[in-house]
């Protein structure tokens, strides 16, 4: 079953922000939109929810045409927005109660699901704490619990861990994986490579509203890079590049760092060892390298 189907979708504000984009998200998968700020990710999330209309193209979400019948789709969608929009004067429990009512749930139905939502969000002890008293990670988890109140099939998450410290972020990732294990579908936007690599079954890599690659993270890395990487810090990157070029498949310079993609990294390291002032790091390739390869620049945070 297809959860989300975008066909040739375009959107222009002052400039073109989404450019004839097509992708399909199957039910039960985690699909990531990966790209830097301004790539059009949030606009796509808003279009999927029917909160803004495409200028051209067709969108179907959970079998329903959007935006024409977006309300019907939203009944079965949970949303984690980029910025918290909890009611800060309300308690954790009141936030869930109020949100349940937006979905026409009765007090009894809401009371029945609140304990499991609090447990899911690890907020059992905070049920009667005001949101203003919660940490950033707790607020995000409450937002996530709130998005589940209508037992949605599809979760739309716009940068769900941006602004969290690493520990809080890992807890969110763990919670998201447990949702995927329960068969939920997730559309996730992120500019965070590690998040995309850890969570997403498939990715759409975006730049300036266009799709520049699509596939499984591991497949993208194999296709685009396919060998180990040596990172070189210090020295003159261009001078060093000339030195190791015979042993490299490809060399990229970004800022002060030289990235050397080499089938045999030992040979590269041998050329550079013993030179003063260099720091060398050999590592497997990741999505960061894919993005650098495709766009010629690093994804700024």
């Amino acid at each position, binding site marked *: 079953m297809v959860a989300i189907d975008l066909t040739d979708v375009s959107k222009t504000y002052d400039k073109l922000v989404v450019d004839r984009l097509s992708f399909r998200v199957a039910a039960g998968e985690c699909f990531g939109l990966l790209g830097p700020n301004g790539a059009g990710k949030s606009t796509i999330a808003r279009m999927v929810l029917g909160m803004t*209309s495409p200028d051209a193209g067709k969108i179907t979400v959970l079998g329903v045409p959007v935006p024409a019948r977006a309300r019907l789709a939203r009944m079965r969608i949970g949303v984690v927005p980029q910025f918290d*929009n909890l*009611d800060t004067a309300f308690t954790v429990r009141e936030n869930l109660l109020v949100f349940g*009512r937006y979905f026409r749930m009765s007090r009894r139905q809401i009371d029945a699901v609140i304990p499991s939502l609090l447990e899911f969000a690890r907020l059992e002890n905070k049920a009667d704490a005001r949101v203003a008293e919660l940490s950033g990670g707790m607020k995000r988890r409450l937002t996530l619990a709130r998005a589940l109140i209508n037992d949605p099939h599809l979760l739309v998450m716009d940068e769900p861990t941006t602004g969290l410290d690493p520990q809080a972020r890992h807890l969110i990732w763990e919670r998201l994986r447990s949702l995927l294990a329960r068969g939920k579908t997730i559309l996730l936007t992120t500019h965070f490579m590690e998040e995309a690599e850890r969570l997403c079954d498939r990715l759409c890599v975006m730049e300036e509203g266009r799709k520049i690659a699509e596939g499984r993270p591991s497949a993208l890395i194999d296709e685009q890079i396919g060998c180990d990487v040596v990172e070189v810090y210090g020295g003159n990157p261009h001078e060093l590049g000339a030195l190791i070029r015979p042993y490299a498949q490809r060399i990229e310079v970004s800022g002060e760092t030289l990235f050397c993609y080499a089938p045999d990294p030992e040979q590269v390291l041998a050329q550079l060892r013993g030179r003063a002032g260099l720091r060398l790091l050999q590592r497997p390739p990741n999505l960061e390298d894919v993005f650098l390869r495709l766009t010629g620049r690093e994804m700024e945070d």
Partner: protein
Amino acid sequence: MGERYAAGMPANAWNWVAVWRRNYLGWKKIGLASVLGNLADPMIYLFGLGFGIGTMIGPVEGTSYIAFLAAGMVATSAMASATAETVYGSFGRMGDQRTWEGMLCTQLTLGDILLGELAWAATKALMAGTAITIVATTLGYASWPSILCLLPVIALSGLAFASLAMVVTALAPSYEYFIFYNTLVITPMLFLCGAMFPVNQLPGAFQDVASLLPLAHAIDLIRPAMLGRPAGSMGLHIGALCIYTVLPFFLSVALFRRRLMR
């Protein structure tokens, strides 16, 4: 375009209740302070002007000045609290607090949200107007049974003023702009619509303008009821308030759609 506008209209006749209940829950936490805050202003006018000026002038339209003024203050308090709730409360929930953003992610439509906000602002107008009515009635400036007729009129007036203010809320870039609405629309109405002195004291052209303004229609319904007199042209006044409720509502759905769902 028409289809998309239609998708922003209320989904059904009851979705707005969830929005109203959210605001009610928020209000309950600060309820008493909020009521006192809304009451202070019209009370000061009622007693300050009523007793101050009232002692210097004779009967107005066949009654004591303070009894004449009481109806004006009931209508004015409904106007002021519905307006304040909409331009400050709703504007905050639309903007900084991101409350509407959360609601728009549920099965609620923009129209449901606006309807809930208007109903809530009208509720606050009803609370403020009723409180003044009770004070005035206790002091003998109105009869107790008249309160029953007044409640729906105050609620409808609140709805009309909230609906007008919602258009301003949809257009205002920031809180600062509401001062223009207050000084250019709300305050002039206070003087043009017979709240503090009879409209027939105004030059003819001003009387014509006044006859179009919502506060004049609200007062023309409230004053006869409080003074126990038969009201003339009730249908006209109720119809006018209904128009002031309905037309701005449709306009604000369109304006908010452009603002929030671009």
